[in-house]
């Protein structure tokens, strides 16, 4: 599965099953609250095998599934 699909599946199943209209562009601010962001961080670290830096946890990187995909791709290759 692609990173995009993995993320959509994870968020829909584990964090916000009510967000039926969630897509790659959806602003996650209304979907993922501050405690859920921490879970996303832990999930990314476990699944993609890199440490998420404090300064990287920003709306620019975590604001949408699309932003998360490009963030993960950039760091996974390092």
């Amino acid at each position: 599965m692609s990173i995009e699909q993995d993320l959509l599946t994870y968020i829909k199943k584990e964090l916000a099953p009510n967000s039926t209209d969630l897509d790659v562009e959806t602003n996650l601010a209304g979907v993922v609250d501050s405690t859920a962001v921490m879970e996303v961080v832990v999930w990314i670290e476990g699944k993609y095998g890199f440490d998420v830096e404090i300064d990287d946890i920003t709306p620019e990187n975590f604001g949408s599934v699309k932003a998360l995909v490009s963030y993960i791709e950039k760091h996974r290759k390092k």
Partner: protein
Amino acid sequence: MPVRLFELLRADAERFPDKPAAVFPGRQSISFGALDERSDRIATRLRRLGIGRGDRVAIFHDNSQPGLEWFWGAQKVGAQTVDVPTLAGRPTIQGVLDEARPKAIALDAKQLKQLEGDDGLRLPPVWLSSAEAADAAKAQGAALHVLDEVLATETAERVAPAGDEHDVALVVYTSGTTGRPNGVMLSHDNFVANLRAANELMHLTADDSILVVVPLYYIHGRMQLLLHTMLGGTLYFSAGFQFPAKVLGELKEYATTGFSGVPYHFKQLLERSKIAEQPPESLRYVLITGGALSQPELRRLAGALPNVGIHLAYGQTEAAPRITWIGPDELFVKEGSLGRALPNVTVEILGSDGQPVGPGQVGEVVASGPNIMKGYVGGDEAELGKIDAQGRLRTGDLGYLDPDGHLFLVGRSSEMIKSAGERIFPQEVEDVVGRHPRVREVAVIGVPDPTLGEKLVAYVALHPGPDIELSEFRAHCLQALPFVRVPKSFEVVDELPKTASGKISRSAIRKAVLEGVPVGAAKPTEDA
């Protein structure tokens, strides 16, 4: 001098007409003069609708400029505003509206989705909202008043409403020992007395400004609004606490002098932002409320922000809300203290016989003063034992005073769960868990958690049936509740402890958990 809350805004508009009263994410701002003028226009409309002294107007908004404008408009006709916690489950919100019976509701169009479906909310007959609400208003047979239209057509008149400073100004819902929401009625003088006393200690001025990370519908948020309205200081609203690194950026960008949060906010800033490496230069004080940070965490905060005064306050919504305060001079001298009573507040510790006990002796913390609430909307404050025959607030918290009058808490009795900066009613979560067909009975409590402050745990007894994955309960809850309000774990027990009258005893469960005893075997205590 007696003052009603709207007069604080009027005074700001006179003194600082062009100064920003509030700045929202994206730098959208409104001046004191404009806020005063726009809310005058709203007041004209509300008067035309026959809304005035003694009537209630619900505010169903996340932090936003229209939410502020409707709030002040309602205050200016002498009405009581009712803060609706937008994140609470629908049955809780409906319960609040059904009990408080507001004549009108200021409705954020973002909340319209809460009206959909079989369990959709039923709102009061007068809606104060935007044009987006037109279809939904029609469907519910409500009269819609659109903000833009009100502002364009009404005149700004400075009419003094009927009533006085002893009238109820705000209704804020909190949870005492019942687990269900109680509407706390607070008067103008409750707030003004508390704000003035708090500021005798903190010495804030019109030059102070604050970054607001909490919703205005919590007392903590309203307090920040009212304090800065009293001072003539500017409120900067954060885009949200999802990203602590971003919140640090906001503190630097807006260069606020103050920041106030609950322990969770400070822990997150310490752990998930570079606040120690890049402290905001203009910040001169922080105020911690809603629970204490541990001493090591307080020291870490002081180390990260060496030029910032750390203040700590203890209170309850029923006390509008501050009871005690401790400032930077004593914080590390009196370790673990929540401070002394505010100048106009009396704190007593009562023993089990109801008589005051001496220094060092543990008993119930009781507060009296001009800040203590008028009562609950339900009129049951005496029956619930919250206000005693002498008019004192029985906090239900256990603590002691040292010989210098410093308060130390040893136990909390409120059922309100404070998790990740949210205030959660156990009942709103239990209502949702209880709707799962396999659940026979449920109790939700908060257990101490190093990160969240308190972690939601659901104890469930099940109807007979095949084995069930506990994750199914979590998925069930996520259908109805935001993530932060979903229990982090589910524990299955054969039977939940009950009181003599057959009610599930959350306090007995909490006691069992803290003592490491199996919950199924827990026996409720006398007062449970």
